[in-house]
């Protein structure tokens, strides 16, 4: 009967309850959508890290990562073949890497030069799909260079221009070579676009004096879920190499994932706290309007725990009644935006990409955090019920009946 009373009490003032229900629904929608947005951002960031920057796993000589010296190449080329037999491995891209400088007659810029094999790079980083001007590496041609759009624009370059790459070889000799810009790639990370240039592996290895050797093996897996297993397996097989997952290569991304999850829940708590004041206000008004009725119930023998339960049930029902609407609204909006994406470039230009995040966000429904969200909503309801309930419990029937 208490639940029936609580439910019917909500609808005694339809407009007031509708406003609160709508507030809960909108608040919940805002919270869940924000979670989805964060999830989409993080998904995009992980995709960038894996596809553009690090792949799932990378293998190096431990010394190489200290100073990026060309002398520290991976000794045995048979390693790549061995890795390809591991279950879950999709593709492997061997790379030579040199930290150097790109120069033109009018300027220069620090860059990471990646010497890649055209076919394997196509499979691991999909570099060919990112070419927006010019073309990908064509077979047989020498000294082709692919440059990021941002650096291309910054240095005011044109397709076909010659640039000079300067770096040190394995014997610490400074070497320079001219390359022709044959393609411009665009990445979702503008920082990456400004920092990395691609050349053919054979040319770079020759310049570094490391023919047939590689500094890096980038491993792409079919599923991110296989990451820990594959990493463990590689560590067992190649104990003398440094095996790093994208989480270790890009710790800021891993940190962003963990902090974003917590941060978004904190923001939901703040939204719900703001809502709680509206709910408290509504419930207080309801309790004060029903002073005589409450006095009557106390007079007739409704004890205080039951009265508390009545106010609590009413507040919880009022709050939870808005929850399905909020969830449905969130789900619908997330479903739509996850298919079409939200292009932040239209209002924030390259703000997102300059931080290494994709400009187009595809929100993802936070199914794994739904329980936490519902717990927050329920806690809000209980918290909101306390003050009105205490107010009701403090009533003396003889005074309440006089009202």
């Amino acid at each position: 009967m208490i639940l029936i009373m609580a439910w019917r009490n909500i609808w005694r003032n339809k407009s007031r309850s509708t406003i609160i229900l709508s507030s809960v629904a909108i608040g919940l929608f805002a919270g869940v959508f924000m979670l989805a947005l964060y999830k989409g951002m993080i998904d995009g960031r992980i995709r960038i890290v894996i596809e553009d920057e690090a792949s799932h796993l990378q293998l190096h000589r431990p010394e190489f990562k200290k100073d990026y010296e060309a002398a520290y190449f991976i000794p045995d080329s048979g390693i790549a073949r061995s890795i390809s037999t591991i279950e879950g491995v999709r593709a492997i891209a061997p790379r030579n890497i040199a930290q150097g400088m790109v120069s033109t007659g009018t300027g220069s810029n620090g860059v990471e030069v990646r010497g890649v094999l055209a076919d394997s790079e196509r499979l691991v980083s999909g570099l060919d799909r990112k070419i927006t001007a010019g073309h990908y590496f064509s077979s047989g041609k020498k000294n082709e260079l692919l440059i990021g759009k941002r650096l291309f624009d910054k240095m005011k370059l044109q397709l076909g221009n010659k640039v000079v790459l300067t770096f040190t070889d394995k014997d610490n000799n400074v070497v320079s070579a001219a390359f022709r810009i044959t393609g411009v790639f665009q990445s979702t990370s503008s920082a990456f676009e400004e920092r990395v240039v691609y050349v053919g592996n054979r040319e770079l290895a020759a310049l570094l004096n490391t023919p047939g050797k590689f500094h890096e093996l980038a491993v792409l897996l079919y599923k991110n879920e296989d990451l820990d297993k594959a990493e463990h397996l590689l560590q067992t097989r190649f104990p003398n190499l440094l095996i790093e997952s994208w989480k270790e290569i890009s710790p800021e991304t891993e940190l962003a994932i963990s902090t974003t999850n917590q941060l978004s829940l904190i923001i939901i708590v703040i939204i719900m706290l703001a809502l709680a004041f509206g709910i408290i206000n509504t419930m207080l008004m309801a309790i004060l309007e029903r002073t005589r009725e409450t006095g009557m119930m106390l007079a007739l023998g409704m004890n205080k725990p039951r009265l508390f339960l009545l106010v609590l049930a009413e507040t919880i029902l009022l709050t939870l009644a808005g929850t399905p609407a909020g969830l449905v609204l969130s789900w619908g909006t997330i479903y739509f935006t996850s298919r079409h994406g939200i292009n932040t470039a239209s209002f924030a230009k390259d703000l997102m990409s300059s931080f290494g995040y994709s400009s187009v966000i595809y929100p993802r429904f936070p199914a794994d955090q739904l329980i936490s969200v519902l717990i927050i909503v329920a806690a809000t309801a209980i918290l909101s019920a306390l003050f009105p309930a205490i107010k009701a419990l403090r009533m003396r029937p003889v005074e309440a009946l006089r009202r």
Partner: protein
Amino acid sequence: MNTVIDAHNISKIYNPKTIPVYAVNNVHLHLRRGEFTALVGPSGSGKTTLLNLIGGLDKPDEGRIEINGTDITQLSPNRLIDFRLHNIGFVFQAFNLVPVLTAEENVEFIMQLQGISHRQRQQRLDVLFRQIGLQDKRHARPAELSGGQQQRVAVARALASRPQFVLADEPTANLDSKSAANLLDIMATLNQEENMTFIFSTHDQRVIERARRVITLVDGRITSDTDAVDTSADHSTPVIPTAAEPAKSQT
């Protein structure tokens, strides 16, 4: 007849620290099972305050009140709520039904609070609604009932818990003559057939005429206490007991 209410020298004082006002002043009252008593007096004479004290809604500043041998002035607020639930029925002037519950639910609610089983509740509801003559209105909300019908439901609610007695504060004040007469008939029948004890505070001459005992209060003191077995009894010459001399019932 057993004693239901035994109030010893009770007083209720408002503003005790500034200008004390005695709403009830040294009242001694003794009521037995099956009495049909009217508490009369002018406005401000202390009728409602006395009912509140007897009903355990308020505590006297002096004296003690025993209901069926239990001194309710010594009970904690929580125990008192429980005591009221099982021992006292209330009928209010403004009916005070829960508007979101149907007539039946309003009555059943009290039995639910008492923890009575569903089957027993249904049996009791059948009896009560037959007694108040509202079998066809069991599922109506209070707003769909007339004032008289609402007050009859309130009577059923007061009786639902099988109380020791029913306190009715101006039960006919908001009713037209026909509804008031009808309500009084129901209460008188319940009094006679079930020996239910009723105490009314009232200004209504129709209630006073139907009462079998009339207690008059003036300025918080009992000024007369008459037994009127014969409804045509002359009320113009009331017995006026002293505060120390308790009124006696002959019923």
